[in-house]
């Protein structure tokens, strides 16, 4: 029954709800409008569609979702590890993963390689231009960006946290990291700006703690 092909007039009838919700293509909209302008029955059909629109809205809005659904979702989310994520994994985690590998030979080999890499990196850092700085092991973008580590009050609603960060034109760059802290990049040009913005962040009631991360050198 529902798969019969509609004639043109029936199809226009079927399109009226989509005319009302504004999702028709230009061609379809113009066809409906031509029909509405030429057929008195079309105007009555449109009135009925408007009544159906209100009735469907009332029927749906009368259904009240449970008030505690968000807290239950949050609890379930915390239990879910989720799939492999798109975010880059830090070198520290990767090295940790090697240590945790089941093959002890492979783990010790990886450890030796990591120690050698660390030593090489230390030598490289100590011999390079003193005006540069870097955060060992961070991604390319983070190497150059000053950041702080921030923890928020446990009861802080996420929407308010987002609002506070947006008001300061900041965003969470990574987290939660071990210890429940978030890394927030500070778009500043010097140490004074860094200190000012970090203090501004710390003054927010939702913020529990601000820990200095990569800070530009004083000018």
């Amino acid at each position, binding site marked *: 029954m529902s798969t019969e*092909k509609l004639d043109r007039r029936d199809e226009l*009838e079927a399109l009226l*709800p989509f005319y009302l*919700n504004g999702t028709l293509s230009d061609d379809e909209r113009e066809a409906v409008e031509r029909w509405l302008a030429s057929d008195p029955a079309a105007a009555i059909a449109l009135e009925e569609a408007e009544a159906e629109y209100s009735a469907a809205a009332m029927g749906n809005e009368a259904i009240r979702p449970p008030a505690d659904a*968000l807290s239950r979702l949050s609890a379930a989310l915390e239990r879910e590890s989720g*799939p492999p994520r798109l975010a880059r994994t830090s070198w520290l985690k990767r090295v940790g993963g090697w240590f945790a590998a089941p093959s002890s030979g492979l783990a010790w080999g990886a450890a030796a390689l990591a120690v050698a890499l660390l030593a090489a990196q230390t030598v490289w850092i100590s011999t390079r231009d003193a005006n540069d700085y870097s955060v060992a092991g961070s991604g390319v973008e983070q190497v150059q960006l000053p950041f702080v580590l921030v923890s928020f009050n446990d009861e802080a609603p996420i929407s308010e946290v987002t609002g506070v960060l*947006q008001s300061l034109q900041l965003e969470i760059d990574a987290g939660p990291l071990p210890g429940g802290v978030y890394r927030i990049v500070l778009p500043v040009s010097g140490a004074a700006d860094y200190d000012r913005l970090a203090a501004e962040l710390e003054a927010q009631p939702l913020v529990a703690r601000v820990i200095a991360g990569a800070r*530009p050198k004083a000018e």
Partner: protein
Amino acid sequence: MNPFDLSQHTEERAKRAKPGMKAQSNQLSDRELVAQAARGERAAVRLLFMRHHARVYRFVMRQTGSETMADDVANEVFLEVWRQAPRFEGRAEVSTWLLGIARYKALSALRRRREQALDEGQAEAVEDGADTPEVTAMKDDKGTALRRFIDNLPEEHRTVIDLAYYHGKSVSEIGEILAIPVATVKTRMFYARKKLGEALKAAGYDRGWP
């Protein structure tokens, strides 16, 4: 090169900004939230939940008629978002994607319930001897009667009515959500509206068509 040059950082951040992000907007788009979820940010899933849960819950409630099932399925939809976010390709609106997941999970839940009922030897539906929808509607005003008639439409018809009128979906989006051709969406809509017209007429309300 000064690593603390503000303009340089701004440019870098702009390069890293997601497509479609509005520079002055205080609110992240649904797609941006899905992208954040894909990077492992649970907070983004919570924000999507706050935006869409009520509609998803109502959609499932209308499909299943069960508050318990609607609650379970609606929560499961957002956990699925968390699991599937890295695979979201952005071809459909996020709300359409959510309703598609909800539809699939609601049908699965209904199928499980039917199997369980059969196992337990229960009747699927019990006639209660109450008034027919048409008789009851004679006691209502036209708007209330129409709402009752929509509630009593066969599920496949009620769903296209809800998706178009309440969820604001297009013909092709409804086709995606229900996994049916657009021609079928139109025929279902036509017959849904025809049935509403007939029911109104039987209840004594005049209707211009069919």
